[in-house]
């Protein structure tokens, strides 16, 4: 295969098709609509299911139904739409079946705007719907990575019978880059031993449900889900390291923020300052152990996000107050420039930093001064 110039949203849609997507249910919302538009053409021409649902609520429940049959199924949306999907996501999680969601995040809260943002980190990683559950969350920073993670997401979802989210932001969805799509995979409909697809005179009936009316049974289901999650935590931590071997200062950023931060890190290296970047690719499970190890040898951390400081909490959890953790964020649909992060790095590497409980206080003062 050769590289082609392709838009992030289209790339994720086509990658899903080639990974064996059998059913797509979605609703238009900027900045992810190209996914729906691409699949509106592709799925029917391949004889696969495509429905433009009446709402995100309906879309996720169509996903729920198709997922119960064991086929590869996906929906995509952007922040406000994903909020509407939280009910269905909780049910899918509680039923322990595989499904994939791509969230091309935009500025919020509320209607917000259609510019790139990362303010759904908490919603994706730390909850969203009701009840205890843990989706796998993957965050691409380029079109190529968006393609690769989309393909991976279906394998992970099936392997663990778990939700997998691609947490992209509007810039990953909207930008065009040279990237390579995978080969078209033949459709293999697996006859999972849990799938509800009609008994066919071959087996006992199956029920898929998230209801356990007997609390002890629900407790056991929760233990089972926690066990799955602990296995996922062991196996599926993913991250990219840049200049971390000898780094005295560590920048942590995911997706577009991580990519922009890399430019600033390179500029610092050019000036001879030992700065490195950790870019978590999986946000859930999170690379706590990697940050824990870095905290034992780094002088300070800088967390860069396109929000008010959400992943920041997880970095702080791993650093455990041993060294200062600073924050630079651009919420509301703003994307940081490399020079702005560079300015932060210059400040951090030339100042006597204090360990504070909430770096957002000083950050807000700097941003609104």
């Amino acid at each position, binding site marked *: 295969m050769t590289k082609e110039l392709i838009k992030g949203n289209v790339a994720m849609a086509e990658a899903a098709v080639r990974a064996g997507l059998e059913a797509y249910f979605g609703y238009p919302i900027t900045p992810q609509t190209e996914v729906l538009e691409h699949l509106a053409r592709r799925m029917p021409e391949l004889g696969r299911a495509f429905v433009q649902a009446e709402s995100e609520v309906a879309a996720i429940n169509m996903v729920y139904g198709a997922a119960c049959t064991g086929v590869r199924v996906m929906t995509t949306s952007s922040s406000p739409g994903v909020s509407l999907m939280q009910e269905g996501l909780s049910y899918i999680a509680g039923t322990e079946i595989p499904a994939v969601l791509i969230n091309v995040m935009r500025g919020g809260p509320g209607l917000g705007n259609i510019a790139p943002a990362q303010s759904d980190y908490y919603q994706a990683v730390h909850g969203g719907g009701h009840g205890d559950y843990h989706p796998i969350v993957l965050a691409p920073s380029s079109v190529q990575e968006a393609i690769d993670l989309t393909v991976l997401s279906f394998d992970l979802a099936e392997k663990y019978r778990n939700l997998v989210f691609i947490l992209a932001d509007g810039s990953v969805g909207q930008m065009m880059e040279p990237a390579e799509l995978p080969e078209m995979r033949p459709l293999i409909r697996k006859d999972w031993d849990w799938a*509800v697809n*009609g008994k066919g005179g071959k087996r006992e009936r199956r029920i*898929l*449900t998230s209801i356990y009316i007997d609390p002890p049974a629900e407790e056991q289901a929760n233990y089972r889900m926690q066990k799955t999650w602990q296995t996922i935590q062991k196996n599926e931590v993913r991250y990219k390291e840049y200049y971390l071997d000898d780094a005295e200062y560590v920048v942590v950023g995911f997706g577009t923020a991580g990519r922009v931060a890399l430019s600033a890190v390179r500029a610092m290296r050019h000036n001879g300052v030992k700065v490195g970047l950790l870019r978590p690719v999986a946000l859930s499970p999170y690379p706590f152990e990697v940050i824990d190890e870095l905290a034992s040898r780094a002088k300070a951390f800088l967390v860069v996000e396109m929000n008010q400081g959400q992943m920041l909490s997880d970095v702080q959890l791993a650093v455990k107050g041993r060294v200062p953790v600073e924050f630079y964020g651009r919420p509301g649909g703003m994307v940081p420039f490399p020079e702005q992060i560079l300015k932060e790095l210059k400040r951090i590497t030339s100042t006597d930093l204090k360990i504070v409980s909430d770096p957002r206080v000083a950050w807000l003062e700097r941003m609104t001064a």
Partner: protein
Amino acid sequence: MFDIKKPENIIYQRPRAFTEVSTHYCPGCTHGVAHRLIAEVLDEMKLTEKTIGVAPVGCAVFAYNYFNTDFVEAAHGRAPAMATGIKRVMPDRFVFTYQGDGDLASIGMAEIMHAAGRGENITVIFINNAIYGMTGGQMAPTTLPGQKTTSSPRGRDVELQGYPLRMSEMIAKMDGASYVVRRSLHDPANIRKAKKAIRTAFEAQVHGLGFSMVELLSTCPTNWGITPVESLKWLEEHMIPVYPLVDCKVSSAVGDMRF
């Protein structure tokens, strides 16, 4: 000697589409009758092995325990969306939802209307008992004017709480709907008519004719606060005038079916 167990002597038995489980429904409730009619039709049409049922939230939340078919359990009101997801990837399976009036006519209004509008080739069994049963007798969209419920304690005041919704009439207006009828479960003659309607609705799906729905007027003695026999009479006297037992939509293709 007369052998009661000989197949040719059996005139009434548990449908094979039922599991060997007693239901949790209250005495006098007509859910059991509705379930039985569905099971009998599944048997007659030999659909059990290819059926995927979609249970609702409400009193019939445990419907999946009673049918010997594959089943899923939807979120409140979302059964038609879930059924859409199943049917679109498995068009050769038989897919039906079983929904109450709170589920279908209130929280699930968007899902039911659009499933019908799309002409999804699924069948909906709609239980209308004019009240929320599972949560203990609150006002439903189908509660009659003046009817007392725990959330309309002085009777449904149409000035404040609006009017009952006639779902079958609304859905029948849509081009995607092939067969939409209302029947009642208050006496044997009507129960026979209800079964015939369920058969027709199921046949419509098997023939690939699009969305079909049977609304079944049902009783809720527990939450209506009257005896089962009084409930049957109350249904006949009060519900049928508001919800007439009519064929709201029989498409010409459904009318032409032979089975």
